[in-house]
């Protein structure tokens, strides 16, 4: 039984595909079945993914470009964008460092309790974002473990940047690690051992041997982590306090605008985030395409 908390997709050995143009018809479905299945898929994806996406951009531009530009350049929107970027700049490097070091540990070393550690790294995936925010309120909130001490020393964690950073860190801990661990485990460590036995230092081995091997997986992990950091809503919502112009990240800013029936402005900010999401998907596909090209 796999000891990790979240199940991995079943491992499949790679078998080179043989393309046979004359595949017998008995291994294909009747055309009518094919068309029906394609039709269902296209309809479902259009209804659930494309239509909401189109809706965001159309609603954002409904009242013209001037309103659109104003909505994303007013001071509240700008401070939300700035705060979000600041959180990205703190959280993504930290979780990337953690992802690399934990993947090195798990793939290159043998020790007891490895599966327990893997389970712990996975834990944030199984925890509701709201609970992720709650746990930091329980520690740093006014009634929390350190609440009184922090209050006496004028340190603000909850309803301030540190709380937002902590909650976002928690939610995105597994992203880079889970991308790198299976990759590095499947690659083995023969090259690293050779490099080390020839006298290279650990740092040199990492930079010249390991890093080039894992660069695409690493980039993919960073991009996924980045997307989640930008978009995290539940956890941040609990710890931010929704102070306008101060502790509102972009998703929280959208929520405020939407609840005030400023739909066009809400969708304008949402469209910015959608562009980021589309870019993320594009980069992901380019990476997949590149790594397929390298392996073939």
């Amino acid at each position, binding site marked *: 039984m796999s000891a990790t908390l979240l199940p991995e*997709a079943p491992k499949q050995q790679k078998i080179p595909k043989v393309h046979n143009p004359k595949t017998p018809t008995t291994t294909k479905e009747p055309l009518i079945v094919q068309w029906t299945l394609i039709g269902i898929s296209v309809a479902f994806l259009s209804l659930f993914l494309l239509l909401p996406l189109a*809706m965001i951009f159309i609603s954002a531009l409904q009242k013209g470009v001037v309103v659109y530009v104003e909505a994303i350049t007013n001071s509240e929107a700008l401070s939300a964008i700035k705060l979000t970027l600041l959180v990205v700049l703190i959280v993504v490097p930290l979780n990337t460092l953690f992802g690399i070091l934990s993947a090195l*540990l798990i793939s290159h070393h043998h020790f007891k309790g490895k599966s327990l550690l893997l389970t712990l790294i996975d834990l944030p995936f199984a925890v509701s974002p709201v609970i992720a925010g*709650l746990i930091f309120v329980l520690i740093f909130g006014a009634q929390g473990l350190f609440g009184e001490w922090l209050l006496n020393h004028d340190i603000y964690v909850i309803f301030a940047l540190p709380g937002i950073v902590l909650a976002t860190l928690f939610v995105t801990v597994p992203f880079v690690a889970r991308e790198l661990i299976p990759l590095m485990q499947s690659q083995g460590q023969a090259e690293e051992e050779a490099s080390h036995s020839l006298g290279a230092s650990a740092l040199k081995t990492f930079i010249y041997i390991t890093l080039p091997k894992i660069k695409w997986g690493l980039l993919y992990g960073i991009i996924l982590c980045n997307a989640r950091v930008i978009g995290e*809503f539940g956890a941040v919502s609990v710890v931010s306090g929704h102070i306008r112009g101060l502790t509102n990240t972009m998703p929280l800013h*959208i929520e405020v605008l939407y609840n005030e029936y400023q739909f066009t402005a809400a969708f304008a900010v949402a469209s910015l985030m959608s562009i980021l999401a589309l870019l993320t998907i*594009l980069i992901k596909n380019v990476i997949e395409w590149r790594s397929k090209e390298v392996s073939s």
Partner: protein
Amino acid sequence: MTILFSKKRRRPFRLPGFSLTLGFTIFYVSLLILLPLSMVIFHTLSLNWQNFLAIITDSRAISAYKLTLSTSFIAALLNVIFGTIIAWVLVRYQFFGKKFLDGIVDLPFALPTAVAGIALTSLYANNGWIGQFFSFKIAFTPIGIIIALTFIGLPFVVRTVQPVLDSFRTEEEEASASLGANRLQTFSKIIFPAMVPAILTGFTLAFARALGEYGSIVFIAGNLPFKTEITPLLIMTKLEQYDYAGATAIAFVMLLASFIFLFTMNGLQWLIQRKYSLNRSR
């Protein structure tokens, strides 16, 4: 030579950096995951038992659990049905726009939940692009919640089933066909059993994600106690009223439920895979 070598006990080669990576990883995980999460247990233990029981069995809480479980289950089931079809179509058939659709499947992973939430709410509201065609309400009812959860969970099923189908050997299908099986028999006896573990994994991931989902639901649900209030929202409401004890107790129940679910599914997965691999090796 060989005797000489075998006498020498080969110790496994150890790469440097063990203590640094171990130290950092343990430190990071303890400080950021273990310690904060243990606060839920710590705070729950500090409640007295009767109080705890009263909070978690409150009728409002019970109806929130029921709503969360039922909508998550239905959404995960929809994802299994449509996700499997989509994965199949993307791997097996050629059609115009396939690459684009394949790429866009990841949208729910990349799009912030709040953005998805407001977009779906506007679409399915009474006067929305889709909502206007229905005589009954969709947004602000459990149906709206199911729609949002289906959106969120879709990539989990597609992306776990896709690689399995991708590496499936067509030789096995050909063998089945040459032995006289029709297409439906080949599918149900050869292809589908190979897909089951992946489908189950997809279901598990989608369901687990749906249980805790908040951002996309909060807009479309309407958030009426007893009717459209999901469990994460109940925690949020209690927090906003500074009822930390209540929020923590409900959070404890949620954590327990999702861990039990994940361990059960892991066990089930193990059983199925063992049965499947035994059948194969015979």
